[in-house]
């Protein structure tokens, strides 16, 4: 009652967490390794690419000490491919999240490995925004990373930032419309499954209140019908049990 905050993460918190994502930078100056809470950063040597957390990469970018390599899924070709998939190929579902890192090692084709014990396979820690992320898949923090990169590293984009921004807007609108219509899955009794696979963190933060409100409303409308159904089931169950025990006796 006292805490006015809604459940779940707010947009600002999601954006803060997204700054932990790794992005690939091309340094312009040498920089020794820094000992961060999340581990040591790699030593930056000018022509060599290195993965850095987004917040550090943005800092270096602002100081003109590094350029950021945008992730492949932020390329206009990849974005329009995703939009095509969302609108034409599968107009009801959200496009799938990126696949987990391959177990096959490029140096040993045909040999599948068990991933290393310390390999991170859960979405927040996947290197899904670096330069070697797969194209055509939106990672969990896609909107936050894309907005941050467009705002602060627009000149590093593979295409004019305006074009990328336009495609992103389209994608946001398409997916928001899907989020709205996904509630109609709750229409009939017995159904009531909403698949949120592939939905990004920021989209979740935006529609959490609404979706929870709809689900709660449907629950309250169905509450009395549910109660009577349970009662009937209980009565019926008891009768069936009796019959069952009779059968057992017969055998």
């Amino acid at each position, binding site marked *: 009652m006292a805490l006015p905050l809604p459940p779940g993460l707010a*947009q600002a918190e999601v954006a803060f967490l997204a700054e932990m994502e790794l992005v690939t930078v091309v340094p312009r100056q040498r920089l020794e390794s820094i000992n961060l809470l999340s581990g040591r950063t790699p030593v930056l040597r000018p022509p060599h690419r290195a993965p850095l957390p987004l917040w550090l990469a943005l800092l270096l970018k602002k100081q003109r000490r590094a350029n950021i390599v945008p992730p492949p899924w932020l390329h206009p070709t990849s974005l329009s491919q995703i939009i095509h998939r969302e609108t034409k190929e599968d107009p009801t579902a959200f496009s799938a999240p990126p696949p987990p890192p391959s177990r096959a090692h490029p140096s040993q084709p045909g040999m599948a490995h068990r991933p290393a014990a310390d390999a991170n396979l859960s979405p927040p820690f996947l290197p899904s925004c670096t330069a070697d992320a797969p194209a055509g898949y939106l990672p969990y923090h896609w909107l936050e990373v894309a907005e941050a990169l467009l705002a602060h590293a627009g000149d590093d984009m593979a295409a004019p930032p305006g074009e990328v921004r336009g495609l992103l807007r389209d994608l946001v609108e398409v997916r928001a419309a899907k989020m709205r219509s996904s509630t109609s899955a709750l229409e009939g009794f017995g159904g009531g499954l909403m698949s949120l696979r592939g939905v990004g963190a920021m989209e979740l933060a935006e529609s959490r209140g609404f979706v929870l*409100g709809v689900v709660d*409303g449907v629950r309250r409308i169905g509450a*009395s019908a549910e109660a*009577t159904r349970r009662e009937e089931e209980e009565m019926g169950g008891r009768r069936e049990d009796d019959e069952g025990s009779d059968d057992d006796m017969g055998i």
Partner: protein
Amino acid sequence: MSYYDIDSILTDAEKIPCTFQLDIPDLGYLDNNPSHTLKSGTRIQLPLWLAEMLAIANTGSLDEQAKSFVTFDLPSALGNDVVQALKADPRAVPLRDQSPHFYGLATHMMDLSEEQELAAVLRKTFVTRASEIALHARKVGGANQHGAKGQADEASNLGVGGAGEEFLRGLDEWERKLFRKAHDGTRAGKEWMDSVKKR
């Protein structure tokens, strides 16, 4: 339905049509007929909380003549014509004109009497209207936040039409809460997007 929930309290004050089953002395003022006996069979609009009490309670005698004080019907907000209209097109019915606490009243009535069909219709209505509400919440946010400035950078280029306002005026309290939630989410998203650019 919490004890402190103001909407729950207001829902309990909604009037529903009741029929008295007994003659009750000196209760005639309920029917604008003071200092007379309230005749059995009189139809009076009673608030929900009172009707519920009187319908559940009975005369107390143990023989078979024990009957409840009143019987109640569905209020006009949940009447047949409204349900038919909702079946035809949920979006076209201004629920607020029926009752400001339409869903609250409906769920309460369904608790008191078995209305399987009503539950199905209401569920469909709520869900269909919910997606419409979300659409309007998104639109309104765009219009209010950026209205005059920066049309090019607009996340949503849809304006609010007259039909939209008409629809929003017809929302009941549950739906208004839903609208507020959807709108808050969209607005926070927009605020964040602006803050990214400023930083």
